[in-house]
């Protein structure tokens, strides 16, 4: 990992993203009002006020930060022409903080979000997914009302996290939906806070243009996109906020909420999703018989793959490797076997069609363009 001070000279463009990433790491540790206001200030190009608010909130609340975070705050203060000595008053503690927050997907945290963001999502570039979850625990030294709705937005490389955070928050407020909006771009590992939140989150809006078959909220397993220098603070070694390095992560700790295309035809018509187990059951009932059979087979061999199929992830771009048809499986009834024979043939046909389609469209698969918005 790269020491932030050893990086190339920061121009005015990268400072906002540095502070945005720092705020992501501070989510759950400072109050949601400070997070939201700081993000608005970043989007409005008032970086100095944003970093002063952030630093002041940490100091007054005696909220410990790591020395790496202290250095990063001092650097942003300096680069935004604020008083960098303010960072000297921060309480530094290298002890790894334990994520004590509790999240819940009960009671439809995503309700109304897709409608409220309809216009916003049409206009803002490269928004990949929007999830929502309730946080039942207070954040920071001056917490607000509970439960707090946390909206998790995942962006592609062309999205601008601070701008999206501000615009999404504004649209939700206008619709009377009170929330704190966490926007993650590519190449930034997710903190324990965000992992815990996304594990319980319900999808509110998901685009069909995901670039990989892994879930949007899962840390990138191997391939690290050309990350902007600005993403380094949260991936710094020894960081207290438990950011997972994308290069060291081998497997997700826990399966996350499946990404489901609930956009069309009418997101509003979707009944609220309840607990994750119910969600999966409901979704299974929505699958075609062919998909049910495929899912059953896949789950028997590879639970992770089964979840992906259930989530509809491989839909357009992925050809699912159908497990071998095991008609001798004693757990299958006669009716199941007959059905499976028929459906296996149908799926094989579909697989051939998908493969042909992919050969035609393979070059245009989204994500091929890895232009980062911070690239020079």
């Amino acid at each position, binding site marked *: 990992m790269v020491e932030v001070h050893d990086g190339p000279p920061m121009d005015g463009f990268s400072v906002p993203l540095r502070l945005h990433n720092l705020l992501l790491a501070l989510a759950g540790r400072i109050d949601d*009002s400070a997070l939201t206001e700081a993000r608005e200030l970043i989007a409005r190009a008032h970086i100095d006020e944003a970093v*002063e608010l952030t630093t*002041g909130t940490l100091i*007054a609340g005696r909220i410990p930060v790591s020395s790496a975070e202290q250095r990063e705050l001092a650097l942003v203060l300096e680069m935004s022409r604020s*008083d960098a000595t303010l960072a000297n008053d921060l309480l530094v503690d290298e002890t790894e903080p334990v994520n004590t927050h509790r999240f819940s997907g009960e009671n439809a945290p995503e309700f109304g979000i897709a409608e409220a963001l309809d216009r916003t999502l049409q206009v803002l570039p490269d928004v990949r997914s929007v999830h929502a979850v309730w946080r039942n625990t207070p954040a920071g030294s001056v917490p607000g009302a*509970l439960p707090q709705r946390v909206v998790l937005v995942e962006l592609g490389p062309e999205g601008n996290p601070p701008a999206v955070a501000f615009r999404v928050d504004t649209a939700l407020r206008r619709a009377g939906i009170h929330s704190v909006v966490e926007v993650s771009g590519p190449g930034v590992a997710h903190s324990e806070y965000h992992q815990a939140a996304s594990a319980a989150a319900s999808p509110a809006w998901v685009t069909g243009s995901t670039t990989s078959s892994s879930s949007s909220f899962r840390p990138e397993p191997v391939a690290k996109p050309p990350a902007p220098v600005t993403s380094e603070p949260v991936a710094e070694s020894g960081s207290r906020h438990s950011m997972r390095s994308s290069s060291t992560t081998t497997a997700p700790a826990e399966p996350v909420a499946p990404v489901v295309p609930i956009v069309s035809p009418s997101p509003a018509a979707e009944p609220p999703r309840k607990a994750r187990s119910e969600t999966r059951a409901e979704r299974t009932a929505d699958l075609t018989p062919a998909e049910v059979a495929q899912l059953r087979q896949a789950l028997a061999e590879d639970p992770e793959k089964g979840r992906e199929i259930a989530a509809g992830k491989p839909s357009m771009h992925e050809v699912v490797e159908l497990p071998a048809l095991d008609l001798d499986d004693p757990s299958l009834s006669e009716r199941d076997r007959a059905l499976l024979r028929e459906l296996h043939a149908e799926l094989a046909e579909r697989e051939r069609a998908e493969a042909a389609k992919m050969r035609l469209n393979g070059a245009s698969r989204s994500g091929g363009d890895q232009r980062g918005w911070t690239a020079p």
Partner: protein
Amino acid sequence: MDPDIEQSTHELLLRLAGRLPDQLLWRFRDWLGEGAMGTLARTLPRSLLKHRIDLDQTEYRLLVAGLIPHGADWHQVSSTLGVDDVTENRYTFTSSAPEWVNSVDSVSVLIHATLRGRPDVGEVRQSWRHVGVVGQGTAKRVLLITALSGLPRLTGELQRVLRVLGDEEPSVEVIPPRFDLPGYHRAALADSELVCVGAVEGTRLVAA
């Protein structure tokens, strides 16, 4: 912390009610309540300048007394002293709760439970602040409290309570005795209702 310095800054933040945006004002008051004077010294003067808030001579003296000892930038502090008269209060106040407040006002009940008979606290009143015409737009609760000591901490404590109850940018005006009330507070008190009285008698905000 030097009580005079703390008192000066508290009075200054009191006088900035209705002038500095609510979301900044409650935050600065929270920082004062937590004793983060160095942070205030580095941020408050700049905020005043950025929001084009000029101070009158009394307020300027409070700023100098409160924040220069904690490292406020002298040039910034100097620039806050205005020449023209301070803008008068631009809000209107009503004593009755707006319709959206439930018939049971749980915030008021909680404040009553917390402050009734409390040492060093006098009268506790509340008013509803409106921008422009009453009935249009949203009304905001303003708490008006007299207290003899620990004013910044009491302010911070009540702000935290109100935030947990859903008021993101609480307006808590804890007024010291013998304080020359600005127009904002006089207008609020003129249309306020009594919530409760602490242990201190004889600190009435509104003439009986």
